[in-house]
C-alpha cells in the first residue's frame, strides 16, 4: 500500500482498473474529461480498451454489447450526456446487464452550466429512462471513497446482474486528495457469468441478451423478478454514514459534496452549542430510509442540503414521514452552498424563524 495524490476524476478511472474493468466507452464532456484523458493513457498500459464513441447514445450501447459478453465495463459522462444515455440504461436494466455508469453532474436544465451540481438526483434514483427499473446509485464524498466505491460498484453489478451508477460533481472530480492504493494492479476474481453471450464455444444452447417480452404476462414476470432483486438489494446493500447523530436535535443531510459541507457545518454548529448531526446516504438508491425514521424519534428537525432546487428532500420527507419538519437549503445551476450560509440557516431554524 502507498499513498498517492489523485484527482477525483482520475480516481474513478484507477478505481475501475483496480476493480478489473478493462473496457471504457465514452464521449467527451466537461467536467469529467480528466477521466477519459486518464483512461486513454492508462487502459492500453493494462491491456485494456479505451474507445471514444460518436455520442453518449453510442457509448451506452457499446457498454450493452461489452457487458453482454460478460466483461466489466465503464462509461462516464456529465448531465446532458446522461440524458442521452437513458434509453440505453433502460435496456441495460431490462436485459439485466452489469456495468458502471458515472455521472459527474453539472448545472442544468438544458446545456446549463459546467459548474458542479446535484440536480440529476431524480434522473439517477427514480429511473430516468422508461419502464419499471432501479439502478444502484452510489455517491462518494471523497477521492478515497471514489476508489473504494468503484470496486463496490463493479462487485454489486455482477452480484445482482444490474447496472450501477456512481454520481459525483465537478468539485469531487477536480479535487486532489491522498488515496491508499495497492502497489500492484492485480485482477480481482470475477465470478463466472454463464449467461454471457460471447459465442457458443461448445455450449449447446445459445445465450440471448434481450429486454423484449412481447407477451404482457411475461413482461410483468420480468418486472416482478427485477423487483424481487431490488428488494434484496435494499435489504443487503444500503449504505450510509452517520456523524454525531446520537443526541442531535437538528439532523443535516445531503450527499457527495453537499454532505461534506453539511458535515463541516455540524462541527461549527456544535461549537456554538447547537446539537447538530449528519446522515449521509452513500447509496442514493437504495435510500437509507430507516436511518431517517429512527433519527426522527429523537431529533427535532431535519435540514436537507443539496446542490439543486431540492430533489433528495423528497426521499428524506418520505422517510421522516411527517414526524418532524424537514427544511431545505440548496443552491443550483452550478452554485455551491457556503458553510456559513448553511450555518445561518441552521441557526434560523433552531430559533424557530422558518416556520
Amino acid at each position, binding site marked *: 500500500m502507498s499513498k498517492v495524490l489523485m484527482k477525483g476524476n482520475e480516481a474513478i478511472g484507477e478505481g475501475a482498473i483496480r476493480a478489473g474493468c478493462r*473496457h471504457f466507452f465514452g464521449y467527451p464532456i466537461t467536467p469529467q474529461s480528466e477521466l477519459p484523458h486518464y483512461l486513454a493513457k492508462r487502459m492500453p498500459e493494462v491491456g485494456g480498451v479505451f474507445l471514444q464513441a460518436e455520442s453518449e447514445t453510442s457509448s451506452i450501447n457499446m457498454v450493452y454489447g461489452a457487458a453482454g459478453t460478460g*466483461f466489466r465495463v465503464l462509461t462516464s459522462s456529465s448531465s446532458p450526456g446522461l440524458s442521452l444515455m437513458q434509453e440505453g440504461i433502460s435496456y441495460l436494466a431490462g436485459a439485466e446487464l452489469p456495468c458502471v455508469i458515472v455521472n459527474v453532474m453539472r448545472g442544468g436544465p438544458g446545456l446549463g452550466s459546467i459548474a458542479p451540481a446535484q440536480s440529476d438526483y431524480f434522473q439517477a434514483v427514480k429511473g430516468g429512462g422508461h419502464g419499471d427499473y432501479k439502478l444502484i446509485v452510489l455517491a462518494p464524498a471523497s477521492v478515497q471513497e471514489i476508489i473504494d466505491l468503484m470496486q463496490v460498484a463493479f462487485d454489486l453489478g455482477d452480484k445482482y446482474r444490474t447496472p450501477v451508477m456512481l454520481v459525483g460533481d465537478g468539485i469531487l472530480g477536480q479535487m486532489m486528495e491522498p488515496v491508499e492504493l495497492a502497489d500492484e494492479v492485480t485482477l480481482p476474481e470475477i465470478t463466472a457469468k454463464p449467461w454471457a453471450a460471447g459465442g457458443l464455444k461448445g455450449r449447446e444452447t*445459445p445465450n440471448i441478451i434481450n429486454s423484449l417480452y412481447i407477451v404482457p404476462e411475461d413482461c410483468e414476470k420480468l418486472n416482478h423478478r427485477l423487483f424481487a432483486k431490488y428488494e434484496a438489494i435494499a435489504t443487503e446493500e444500503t449504505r450510509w454514514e452517520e456523524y454525531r447523530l446520537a443526541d442531535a436535535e437538528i439532523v443535516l443531510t445531503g450527499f457527495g459534496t453537499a454532505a461534506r459541507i453539511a458535515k463541516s457545518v455540524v462541527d461549527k454548529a456544535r461549537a456554538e452549542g447547537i446539537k447538530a448531526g449528519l446522515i449521509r446516504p452513500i447509496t442514493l438508491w437504495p435510500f437509507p430510509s430507516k436511518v431517517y425514521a429512527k433519527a426522527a424519534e429523537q431529533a427535532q428537525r431535519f435540514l436537507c442540503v443539496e446542490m439543486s432546487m431540492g430533489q433528495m428532500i423528497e426521499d428524506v420527507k418520505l422517510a421522516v414521514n411527517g414526524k418532524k419538519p424537514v427544511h431545505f437549503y440548496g443552491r443550483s445551476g452550478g452554485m455551491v452552498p457556503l458553510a456559513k450560509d448553511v450555518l445561518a440557516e441552521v441557526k434560523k431554524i433552531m430559533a424557530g424563524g422558518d416556520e
Partner: protein
Amino acid sequence: MAKVMFKRPAALTDKQFHYCPGCTHGIIHRLVAEVIDEMGIRDHTVGVCPVGCSVFAYDYFNMDMFQAAHGRAPAVATGIKRTLPDRMVFTYQGDGDLASIGTAEIVHAAARGEKITTVFVNNAVYGMTGGQMAPTTLPGQKTTTTPKGREKEAAGLPVKISEMLSTLDGAVYVARVSVHDPKHITQAKKAIRKAFEVQQAGLGFSLVEVLSTCPTNWGLSPKESLKWLADNMLPYYPLGVYKEPAEVK
C-alpha cells in the same frame, strides 16, 4: 446415391419465422445462416438483431444473440467485438433501424473500420410499425405517412446507404444485392460470404445491402412484390459491389 441439394441450415433454429407470407426477410436470414454454416463459424459468431420486423431474429439464429435498441446495433456490435476480437460479429438491420434512427451508429462503426459485418435489409418501408415512410422509400411511393406518394418538397429523397458508406475509408466491403429471384439470391449469398470473409481477415467494416420485399405494406401479393422490387427498386438502387478490398477479390 442421394445428394441433398437443399436443406435447412444448422445455423437456423427450428423455430418458425413469424414473417408475413412471401416476406423475403426469411430468405435473407437463411442466406446468413448458410454462410455461417459453410464457413464453419457458428460456434464463435455473435449476432445483433434490430428493432423492426426482424426483432425476433435472436430466436431464429442458432447462436449467441443480442437484441439491440432501435438503430443501435452497430454500437452494440462494437462493444462485443472490442471485448472479444476473435469472434465473428454481425448486425441484421432494417432500413428504418439503420438508415434513419441509427445513421450515426452505422456511419461511425463504418468510419472506425469496426471489424463487424452488417446485413442491411432495404424494403423501402417501415414494416413493423405499419407501413410508414422509410428513409429509403422511393419518390412517389405511397406509404401510410405519404398517402399521396413521397413528395420531394415535404419528405426529401431516399438515402442511398451503400453509395454513402462506400465513401468511408473504414468501410472496406460494401455491396448491394437483391433476393427477388434465384439468380440474385445466389449472388446475394456470395456477397454475404465475402462480407464475413472480410471480417474474418480483419480488414475492416463490411456491409451488404439487400433489397427486400414487404408484400403486406406494399399492398401487393408476394409474387407482385418481387416484380415491383425489380421494376422500381433496381433502377433507383443499382446492384453491385461498391467497394472491395484487393485481398478478397
